[in-house]
């Protein structure tokens, strides 16, 4: 059992390192461009937030750091759940090695995504905190755990949707649409306190809302979430994890990679 686990960890780390080496490999400063891509994707949002000062702003929550702490976990989550089947298809040649499974490919590439977004998160929040005079996060371990939860949620949701994509390839086009609304309903731009309290019960089922709320609570001294529950996030992760792994196993045996 330990031997198998070790083999799986070896495969995940090998795939992750290879993916990192191949990111923009044809360009000079290859991996730095991957970081730049992630920076660009959130840079636009920060600009909008700063230009429209006061739009969705809350007292004590500095706009640039506020957007970064919400948008980076969200973008990481979106990129992961959306691209699972494509990732397996792109790397399916690696399945010719005994011991390499589609799950290793998913986790290996997801680990590379986590590294990229983790580095960008660390760099950008350090810079914006210094510019805006935001003090050190109130609960750093909480910030790390919430960031990891967003990552795991993306991986598991990707595994859940993967069989559907194989059965009906255009499925993602329909699924993506409601998820775009998530950008506005998951505490990325607006905190739940900016919505009337009578709509809260219709929003709190969303685990990414809890992630966004908890992230700001653990980061900013001036914000305490009225709804964010760490236990709910853990419960969702366990449920999604079990379902995702089950469906991945089904897809591996029954549905060919398309």
């Amino acid at each position: 059992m330990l031997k198998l686990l070790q083999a799986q960890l070896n495969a995940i780390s090998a795939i992750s390192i290879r993916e990192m080496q191949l990111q923009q490999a044809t360009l000079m400063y290859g991996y730095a461009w991957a970081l730049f891509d992630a920076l660009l994707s959130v840079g636009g949002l920060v600009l909008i937030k700063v230009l429209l000062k006061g739009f969705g702003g809350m007292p004590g929550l500095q706009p640039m750091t506020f957007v970064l702490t919400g948008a980076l976990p969200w973008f990481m989550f979106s990129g992961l759940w959306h691209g699972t089947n494509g990732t397996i298809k792109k790397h399916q040649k690696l399945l010719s090695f005994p011991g390499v499974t589609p799950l290793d490919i998913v986790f290996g590439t997801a680990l590379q995504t986590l590294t990229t977004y983790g580095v960008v998160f660390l760099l950008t929040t350090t810079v914006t905190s210094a510019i805006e005079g935001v003090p050190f996060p109130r609960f750093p371990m909480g910030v790390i755990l919430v960031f990891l939860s967003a990552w795991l949620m993306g991986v598991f949701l990707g595994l859940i949707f993967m069989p559907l994509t194989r059965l009906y390839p255009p499925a993602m086009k329909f699924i993506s649409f409601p998820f775009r609304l998530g950008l506005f309903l998951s505490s990325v731009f607006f905190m739940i306190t900016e919505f009337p309290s009578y709509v809260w019960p219709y929003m709190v089922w969303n685990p990414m809302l809890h992630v966004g709320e908890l992230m700001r609570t653990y980061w900013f001294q001036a914000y305490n979430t009225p709804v964010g529950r760490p236990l709910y996030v853990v419960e969702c992760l366990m449920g999604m994890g079990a379902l995702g792994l089950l469906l991945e196993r089904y897809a591996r045996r029954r549905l060919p990679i398309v």
Partner: protein
Amino acid sequence: MSVSFQNVGKVVHRAGRAYELLHDTNLCVENDARVGILGGPKSGKTTLLRLICGTETPDTGIIKRDDNISWPIPLANFLVNTSSVALNIRFVQRLYGIKHKDFPRQIAELGGFLEFLNVELQKCPPLVKAQLTFALGIGMDFDIYLFDDRVGPPQKQFKERATELFKCRTEGRGVVVASSIPAEIEAHCDSVFVLDDGRVTHFDDVKDGVSHFKNLMKAANEKQKNAEEAKEDDEGAGGTEEAADGMEELAAAL
């Protein structure tokens, strides 16, 4: 016992049609045996190798493996042409958790392409790729080595060295060679499985297996020739019928 198949069945889909590659197959490969698998083109040799190493799952039956089994050698599809030879080797090194720092150099020495170690694969001569895939497989420490089609690259410059390496590295280990070339099996194996129409027949003597395979191929060729002749006859007859129909239509029109 190292690998054993119990009532294994495998169906594959080609161009929308289902083909039964293996039907209720029972076989076992000991970890010090040198076994050949002889089969015609598209008979399922590579699929059988994939089933042995575990990269493919059977539709029915059970496959038990006790030992560390190689991938079907040579395996080239994972190589990244824009990466150096050393980086490609390092990937496999990490995949199998090999801690030895000089592993890429060892593989390059084994394959005889040390001067290309830090060169991008796409800038290397074509023979280097063949040497790399062979050396990478044979340079790993497996209990059973699987070879697809040939043992070693077909190029003359490397053939002798490849045979020498094969003998040296696989001594006391298991070897499975799947090929449609009887000479490959005769040169490297002690017993043979002949794969025909989803059925696997075992021969302790390679010569018996090879002659059985040759008879099968001869029969298949004759069958194909007869089928082609029959088709040509049908087309000829069809052509006459069409001509007759055309004449009738012409007569009616007149």
